[in-house]
């Protein structure tokens, strides 16, 4: 069962909340604020979630998007939840490496590998 919000596609698989993006580019501040609000609202309703953010299809991300991920990870961690990322294209993953965020996030090559790691 999945719920498609304006910018996110949300589904549950084996008690893991899977988040996918409707847009190929996550760069716009308004879009990022919208995504942040949607996920924060979900977290408030269901603290302690295990969440997989699947970046399949995402072609471009900005520093604001990286900042949003950091903030969201902190909020999730404070509720006892877990966050994993997967399917990040190599040129986007490079931005994680440049900013050393690959040390902050648990990133997997595929959704299958990420599920196995929960």
């Amino acid at each position, binding site marked *: 069962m999945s719920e498609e919000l304006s910018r996110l596609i949300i589904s549950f698989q084996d008690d893991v909340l899977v988040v996918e993006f409707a847009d190929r580019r996550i*760069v*716009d*501040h*308004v879009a990022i604020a919208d995504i942040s609000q949607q996920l924060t609202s979900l977290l408030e309703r269901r603290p302690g979630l295990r969440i997989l953010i699947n970046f399949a299809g995402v072609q*471009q991300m*900005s*520093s*604001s998007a*990286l*900042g*949003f991920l*950091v*903030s969201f990870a*902190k909020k999730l961690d404070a509720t006892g939840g877990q966050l994993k990322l997967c399917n990040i294209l190599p*040129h986007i993953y490079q*931005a994680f490496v*440049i*900013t*050393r*965020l690959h*040390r*902050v996030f648990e990133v997997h090559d595929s959704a299958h590998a990420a599920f196995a790691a929960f």
Partner: protein
Amino acid sequence: MLPVSTNQHFQCLSISSELSSARQVEQRLITELRRQNYPDDYLFAVRLALEEALSNAIKHGNRLDPDKTVTVRFAVEPEKVQLIVTDQGQGFDPAAVPDPTTDDHLEDPSGRGITLMRAYMDEVIYNSRGNEVRMVKRITSPQSRQAG
């Protein structure tokens, strides 16, 4: 988006302090890069750097003031791409921005834009006032140009 001038090298555009205006400039640059057969990895790098510079100019420079504009000049040449983004704000000292890759700032919610610009472009130089950034991305070899 108003075309201010075009000379042999630089296209010059003036946009309002709205993030939606930035998309139009980016699209124009990408179209020119594609026309000159720049490879996809260059498109990604230049687009990311321009997005970060425009975002900084609009949000932090002009503070979204509708009475202020951002001027973008760019030149797509066979061997390099040059970008100059100028806002009408008070400017800032880029050296005063904390390094987001240090342990103390690794989990800061913001402050990664300049780091990404410097990583993806060959030159990133601010003017003394700090309201204008010049960026250059060179093509390393004819082979890399054909790779895209």
